[in-house]
């Protein structure tokens, strides 16, 4: 496969090469390289992994094995906003499950899935270490504390409004890095 350009739309190697370069072309920096690539591209599809493997001169299977092992790496594109509901023990005891149920109902998605209009991705995340403010929900990088199911719906509406949300405009084309960057 020709990896200098993944789908003919943007130069893949131009994104990945500098990232690999500033990490010293060091295979032991693979996780850091994947973090930075995901930050730049939004996700880590197969051809991206292939490109990284080429740059680091290691088997693509090894890159794939690392990508699939760690939960923060994703091979599918995410929505405009990622909702991460903390399901640490403190949040669980304070009712995080009810929030998840509410979100699943409101957004009509399961955990790890993206809404049909590509606006929200629902994630359940590991303890974020804000247990004294449980239950905690992250939307992108914003921390929301002492959340209740009712409050959650209100929070969602803010994010929809902020984007001047309209379903027609916000369909995310998974291939393009510019739109992916908007969520970061």
């Amino acid at each position, binding site marked *: 496969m020709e990896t200098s350009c993944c789908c003919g739309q943007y130069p893949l190697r131009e994104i990945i090469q500098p990232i690999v370069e500033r990490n010293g072309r060091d295979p032991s920096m693979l996780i850091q390289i994947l973090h*930075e690539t995901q930050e730049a591209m939004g996700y880590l599809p197969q051809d991206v992994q292939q490109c990284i493997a080429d740059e680091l001169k290691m088997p693509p299977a090894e890159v794939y*094995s690392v990508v699939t092992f760690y939960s923060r790496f994703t091979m599918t594109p995410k929505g405009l906003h990622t909702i991460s509901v903390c399901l640490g023990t*403190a949040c669980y005891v304070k009712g995080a499950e009810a929030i998840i149920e509410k979100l699943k109902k409101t957004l009509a998605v399961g955990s790890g899935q993206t809404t049909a209009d590509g606006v929200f991705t629902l994630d359940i995340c590991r303890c974020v270490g804000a247990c*004294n403010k*449980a239950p905690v929900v992250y939307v992108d990088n914003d921390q929301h504390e002492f959340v209740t199911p009712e409050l959650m719906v209100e929070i969602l509406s803010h994010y929809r409004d902020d984007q001047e949300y309209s379903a027609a405009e916000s369909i995310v084309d998974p291939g393009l890095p510019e739109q992916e960057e908007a969520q970061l």
Partner: protein
Amino acid sequence: MNGISTYHENTGFGARPLYARPMTSTQLKALAAAATDHPAKDLGSDHPSIEKQCRIALANCGYIDPERIEDYFDAAGYFALDKVLEQYTPRQVIQIVLDSGLRGRGGAGFPTGRKWLFAHEAPGYKKFVVCNADEGDPGAFMDRSVLELDPHAVIEAMAIAAYAVGADEGYVYIRAEYPVAVKRLNKAIGQARDYGLLGHDILGRGFNFDLHIRLGAGAFVCGEETALLNSVEGKRGTPRLRPPFPAIKGLFEKPTVLNNVETYANVPAIIRRGSDWFSSIGTDGSKGTKVFALGGNVVSGGLIEVPMGTTLRQIIFEIGNGIPDGRAFKAAQTGGPSGGCIPAEHLDTPVDYESLVRIGSMMGSGGLIVMNEDKCMVGIAKFFMEFMVEESCGKCTPCRLGTRQLLRFLEKITRGQAEMSDIEAMESLAETMRSTSLCALGQTAANPVLSTLRYFRHEYEAHVRDKRCPSRDCKFMARFVINDNCKGCRKCASACPAEAISGTAKKKHIIDGKLCVKCGACLESCKFEAVDKEW
């Protein structure tokens, strides 16, 4: 994702021959002499009471500006490193740590000094020190707080450890979920390099040490030491077979000392104030203090640091101000997913490593979740088992399959489909996992089940025998029944996703319990309060 792309390493040895603002030993001594203890600050009734606490690891947290190394100097910062380089041989440093009785704060409680001694004695000229900041236990956030509020303490302690074992390179493995901690630690490392406290010829005493950050990527098992080392090397974070232990063959196959953040945070104080002072705090087997993340159903939650041996009752009721909303205490969960639930009859147990193991839990990294009477213990066990299924790395069979089987049993129980023999099968499976799993994650994965079975067996039996959840917590144990208020409006029948409601218009409807999926849609849709939720 702040902090990930902003962070880059560019310094190796020799990259910066002259320090921007070199710190001298004399200056450090003068600052340390002027340093005073922070007065205990009471934050009011919303926060855990300060009186019964004793702060060593958290001493500077909240009192200094973590982004200014000068503030840390004013709190006698780096004085311990200077003292060590000036006055002690590596062997003497290890002896001080041994004498202090400091044990690993990450969970297992292995004596820190002995770890250092093994690495010190291991042959080889290249050695590493590593800091485990992969704080994965749900409900624990002391490592995050130390790194965010006092990052220099960890850097200083790692330099001391490096001197003691003969290492010149260190790694901090930190969760990617903690962007602020990564940012502050990064900044702190930069400042320490400016002052010549990291790098070549530290404080002019011929000792070299530099520090790197490695980010995790969301895998609980990476808190296990050998899995962490694999992850630092950029590989899948699966545990290695031990022995050889990391002290002999660790990072990149070199002797490696690996300690938790909180353990390191105790080291500078021990060096400054002496091992006798530290060992005077705590109990016979467990010296010093422990930080707990007090959370759950408690009035004043937050981070607290208490001397080892403080009882749970003191922690929950005197420092945490008890249970809110007039509810009763049911259990305290310590040790995260590897720990257990402690019932009310053990509230007076002094909290130290041995006592907690004796009552079927463990210290763990210090998460302490308080649960009131509304929480179902089977549900809690199921919650942890779901976590374990998700986080089992899959390398060894007992853990990979055992966690899944245990979860299936627990699901059966909470759905009222289990038999009494299932409980015995769970116990036997748990024992197999404990004795045959590769790493501590699998060996302790069944602890939440075993400890709840030990103290709350009656709840399991109520689920299995009476198909009833005594805490009214398990969703599938509820029964929805239509009472005589029913006007036969058909609203509930059309709301029901399972088509479990039958009845003709204007006549009382009936819910078929076999078809009901317990979603509660009928209860929400009814305008006449005709649907009852029974337990």
